[in-house]
């Protein structure tokens, strides 16, 4: 794109706004609600898997994706834009970090990288901003568990709990009342499901809702035992059965 277009398509309006970014926010707010909650021992990411038809094979599409074994990401807005950002984040965590330092990037570094990609799409020639907001949850040894939001503008914020997309305002009010410092992961999953229930229109079960968790290391996933100083991944998706079990408990 940049070869034919040497000028940015995102330019200032007389009022000082970048209208293309405002429009990108509109695309986000029309998207399905997603939320994230940080607990004392983990992070929950949740979203609704809204299908336009019952014929859609919902299990084949994954809205919550892992970027590194300890970092996961969910979105509200345009699915294809999310897909591209996931691929870029996964690749960049290797080329710009693991292949240099032989370890995965800490959450904040990964977030800054994605945010830079999104900002570049607001200033580079011939491209449009990404039509997604992202919630990135992760764990690293120095900072513990963290939750970040990244916007189409490229701004990023750390959160204790937040929601993005269609029902985000009411969901955030809901979360504000329920979030506490000493929440544990299971409590956070419970609150996430309660919050989603408010904005989900159709049926809510293990197949219409997706939950991703960054929690304790799953050493059994390594495929071998007996090696010290190596931990399994912390990112995990709840199976439809696990979600249904928790929905029954509401």
């Amino acid at each position: 794109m940049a070869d034919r277009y040497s000028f940015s398509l995102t330019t200032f309006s007389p009022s000082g706004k970048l209208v293309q970014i405002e429009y990108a926010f509109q695309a986000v707010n029309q998207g399905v609600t997603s939320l994230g909650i940080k607990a004392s021992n983990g992070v929950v990411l949740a979203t609704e898997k809204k299908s336009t038809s019952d014929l859609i094979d919902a299990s084949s599409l994954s809205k919550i994706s892992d970027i590194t074994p300890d970092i996961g990401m969910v979105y509200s807005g345009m699915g294809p834009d999310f897909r591209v950002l996931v691929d870029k984040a996964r690749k960049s965590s290797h080329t710009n970090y693991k292949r240099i330092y032989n370890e995965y990037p800490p959450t904040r570094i990964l977030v800054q990288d994605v945010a830079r990609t999104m900002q570049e799409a607001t200033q580079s020639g011939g491209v449009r901003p990404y039509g997604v907001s992202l919630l990135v949850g992760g764990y690293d040894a120095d900072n513990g568990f963290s939750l970040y939001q990244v916007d189409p503008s490229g701004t990023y914020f750390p959160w204790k709990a937040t929601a993005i997309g269609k029902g985000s305002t009411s969901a955030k009010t809901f979360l504000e009342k329920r979030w506490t410092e000493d929440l544990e992961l299971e409590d956070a999953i419970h609150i996430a499901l309660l919050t989603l229930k408010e904005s989900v229109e159709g049926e809510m079960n293990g197949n219409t809702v997706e939950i991703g968790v960054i929690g304790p290391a799953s050493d059994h996933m390594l495929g071998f035992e007996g090696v010290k100083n190596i931990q399994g991944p912390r990112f995990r998706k709840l199976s439809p059965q696990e979600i249904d079990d928790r929905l029954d408990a509401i």
Partner: protein
Amino acid sequence: MSDPSSINGGSVVAMVGKDCVAIGCDMRLGMQALTVSNDFPKIFQFNNAFLGLTGLATDVITLSEVFRYKVNLYNLREERKIEPETFANLVSSTLYEKRFGPYFVGPIVAGINSKSGDPYICGFDLIGCINFAKDFVVGGTSSDQLFGMCESLWEPNLEPDDLFETISQALLNAQDRDALSGWGAIVYVITKDKVVKRLLKTRQD
């Protein structure tokens, strides 16, 4: 005027002790037979990782500046100090980038992980292959001699003061058997809460 790794001369060695590491180097800088300087240290500190660099002196200087730059940016970006293991991988990737036009150096890294307290040492070849060791690593024009000295003198779980004596004797006697190393020596003894740097009294030839 042939082998870049033995024009300027120099030696480094690192050892692991009980909750401590030590790293030492000679002070000579030469142009083949001519000694140009007796004040050319080959150990550089980056946060809590120590890098010993032998080989072509211009590459020793350049790489010490390259790593200073990379570690400074790491500190600013990550808002934390770099650990020895991470720094070692940074050295490896930096050297491999120049796979087909390498830096003529023989680096070694030594340090203590600030979180776990575990001692860490390793060596590399000129294109970045990591040689992880639990006992000692050597480098430079007297590396053969250093291997012999370390293999015989080293034992596990030496206390800091004993480790100092051991690494000093290994370095001194090895560099005295090498025409291109010597003219002084420096030894760092690193523990979790302090670093002691000592200048050794050596033969000045």
